[in-house]
């Protein structure tokens, strides 16, 4: 699968052969840092001063590299496809090899970072419960009514929410039975076949 680079992207990456190969290594490192930690304008300024080029050129070069690396990692393109995709930029063989090495070295980490960007549903954090028995109320004395109160702690992207639920013991037993049945589904042939194919 080939990457199609837009004209603007090609123009940004066009700055790379001008800075020289060791500088491209530095820009590559900045690009990976950008993916790991976010924008660092001061680092770009320092690099621009060290290489005596315009800050904007450095910024565009780093951003272009970042986009190239993240798109390639996202699509998990093979080495040959990567080389063919950047061939269109007309760089020297040395530069192409450098870019390929940059891609291969950082591919796994970039994929891990991209994997964390997906939207998340609230997930289980912890559970507190209590068992009470109602003995009497204003309208009726001499009762025995057991109830289980559950406080479910959920977390979603560092937000903590709380859900309070109440049920009687027979509903709770039914709930447990349904959840155990759901877990048991993993052992059926159908699920086993799918899991085997995924591995």
């Amino acid at each position, binding site marked *: 699968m080939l990457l199609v680079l837009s004209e603007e992207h090609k123009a940004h990456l066009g700055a790379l052969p001008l800075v020289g190969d060791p500088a491209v290594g530095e820009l590559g490192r900045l690009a990976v840092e950008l993916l790991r930690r976010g924008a660092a304008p001061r680092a770009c300024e320092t690099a621009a001063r060290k290489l005596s080029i315009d800050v904007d050129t450095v910024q565009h070069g780093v951003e272009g590299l970042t986009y190239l690396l993240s798109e390639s990692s996202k699509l998990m393109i093979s080495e040959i496809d990567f080389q063919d995709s950047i061939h269109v930029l007309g760089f020297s063989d040395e530069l192409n090899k450098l870019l390929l090495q940059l891609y291969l070295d950082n591919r796994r980490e970039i994929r891990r970072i991209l994997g964390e960007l997906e939207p998340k549903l609230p997930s289980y954090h912890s559970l*507190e419960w209590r068992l009470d028995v109602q003995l009497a109320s204003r309208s009726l004395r001499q009762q025995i009514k057991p109830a289980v109160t559950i406080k479910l702690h959920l977390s979603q992207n560092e937000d903590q929410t709380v859900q309070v639920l109440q049920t009687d013991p027979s509903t709770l037993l039914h709930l447990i039975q349904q959840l155990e049945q759901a877990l048991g589904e993993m052992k059926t042939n159908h699920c086993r076949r799918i899991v085997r194919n995924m591995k």
Partner: protein
Amino acid sequence: QRFRFCGDLDCPDWVLAEISTLAKISSVKLKLICGQVLRDLLGEAMEYEKILKLTSDAKLDSGDVKATIAVLGFVLCSAAKHGVDSESLASELQQLGLPKEHAGGLCRCYEEKQSCLQDRLRARSLRLSRLGSVCWRVDHTLSSSELWEVNEPLVHLTFNVRDGEHGGTAAVPVVLSADKFRVLLAELRQAQALMNSL
């Protein structure tokens, strides 16, 4: 095999795995570490540096130290939760492979603090809301725009409720006439009599 201190269930694998780590520490030092763990469970600060000093002889690395604290915390909390007496706990720990002096030291620590621990666990149990305090005031209405001479007493009550769901205190103000207040009082007295008869 079922253990009472695990609530009549199997002992968790990670606890079994760390029993041998506990055996590496001398039984005297284990008792002191237990004391520190109990301090943490009872809400005071645990002195981690002391624990590090006590485990340094046994040459435990930082992962083993944390595992030791976790296992001791689990055993003490779980035993208190299920109301296990200290002799049963000692015999069950020996069944798991903990040497006799170690189990004995641990259980002596447990016995001293068992009721404190249970009180603290009881206080930490789930409560949805809690009444903080009640403030009251009795007024006498003289007159109003509807009627020239009203002359009726009025009770203002403010319940300060601590919300268990989200934390924080909410004030709930209520205004009652004398008759309604008498009904409220009678009903609450009946509920109190029921509670006392339990």
